């Protein structure tokens, strides 16, 4: 943690952090942006994962991916800046918080899982008429579990 200490000090003292702490409505407004963002992210990811698992076969997997996944990517433009702003308000407390650390680990794992899926098994998705292969289904289940875990950690931050 000591490597990060100067950065955390700088962030904690920044004008942005002071505004986040001090302004009555900024913090809750940024929370709303964060929540709307991850609703779109986890919503679209979950719908896609469920399609990979075999639900809603009326839409082919690649078509579902083309429709849903751009929203997942776009939602990050709201979630990440809002998350950084929320973090800036209390960088010491959060970075030392076990639930927050777990949340970041789960996000990293979800990212790696998605990366592995897209570089790997998803390249054959055009041929999944008979159903997705076992690896794809496994990655879809892992994705669902990780994102639910991320939301759980985010909520439990308020109680830890």
């Amino acid at each position, binding site marked *: 943690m000591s490597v990060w200490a100067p950065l955390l000090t700088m962030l904690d003292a920044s004008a942005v952090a002071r505004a*986040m*702490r*001090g*302004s*009555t*409505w*900024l*913090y*809750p407004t940024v929370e709303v942006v964060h929540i709307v963002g991850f609703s779109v992210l986890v919503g679209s990811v979950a719908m896609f994962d469920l399609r990979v*698992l*075999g*639900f*809603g*076969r*009326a839409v082919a997997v690649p078509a579902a991916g083309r429709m849903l996944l751009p929203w997942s990517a776009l939602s990050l433009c709201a979630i990440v800046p809002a998350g950084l702003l929320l973090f800036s*308000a209390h960088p010491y407390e959060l970075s030392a918080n076990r639930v927050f650390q777990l949340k970041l680990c789960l996000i990293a794992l979800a990212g790696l899982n998605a990366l592995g899926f897209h570089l790997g098994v998803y390249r054959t998705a055009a041929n999944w008429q008979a159903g997705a292969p076992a690896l794809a289904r496994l990655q879809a289940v892992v994705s669902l579990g990780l994102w639910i875990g991320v939301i759980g950690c985010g909520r439990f931050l*308020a*109680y*830890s």
Partner: protein
Amino acid sequence: MVKALNLHLYFIEYNIHPGGCMKRLLTLMALCVAAQASAHHGWSEYDDQRPLRLSGTIEESGYENPHGFVRLKTADKTWLVVLAPPSRMESRGLARAQLAKGATAVVEGFPKRSDAGELRAERITIGQKTTELR
């Protein structure tokens, strides 16, 4: 029952076939909700069986998000007293200026289980004015 029927019709309309997998998923979700509901009352990190009333002087205060706070110097030690979000304090008439350094305050609340120096205040009295914080 009506809800289940609607869900069923939805599945038919959109050609979704809930098999054993879907049933297991729904069961799992129901269990998670039940587990969270039962865990909720045991979750509180503040001990509501041990209400405390502290009086002292404000050494430092923060009219901050997500929760305001004061460091309250009492006869035996200085407590970190967690207050409410500034928006709530503002709407209940507890202005930033009232949490001035050196002011005398009385707080009632619950101590944190894991930190003997922290209290979550249910209400704070400054001068003659008591503000409910929950």
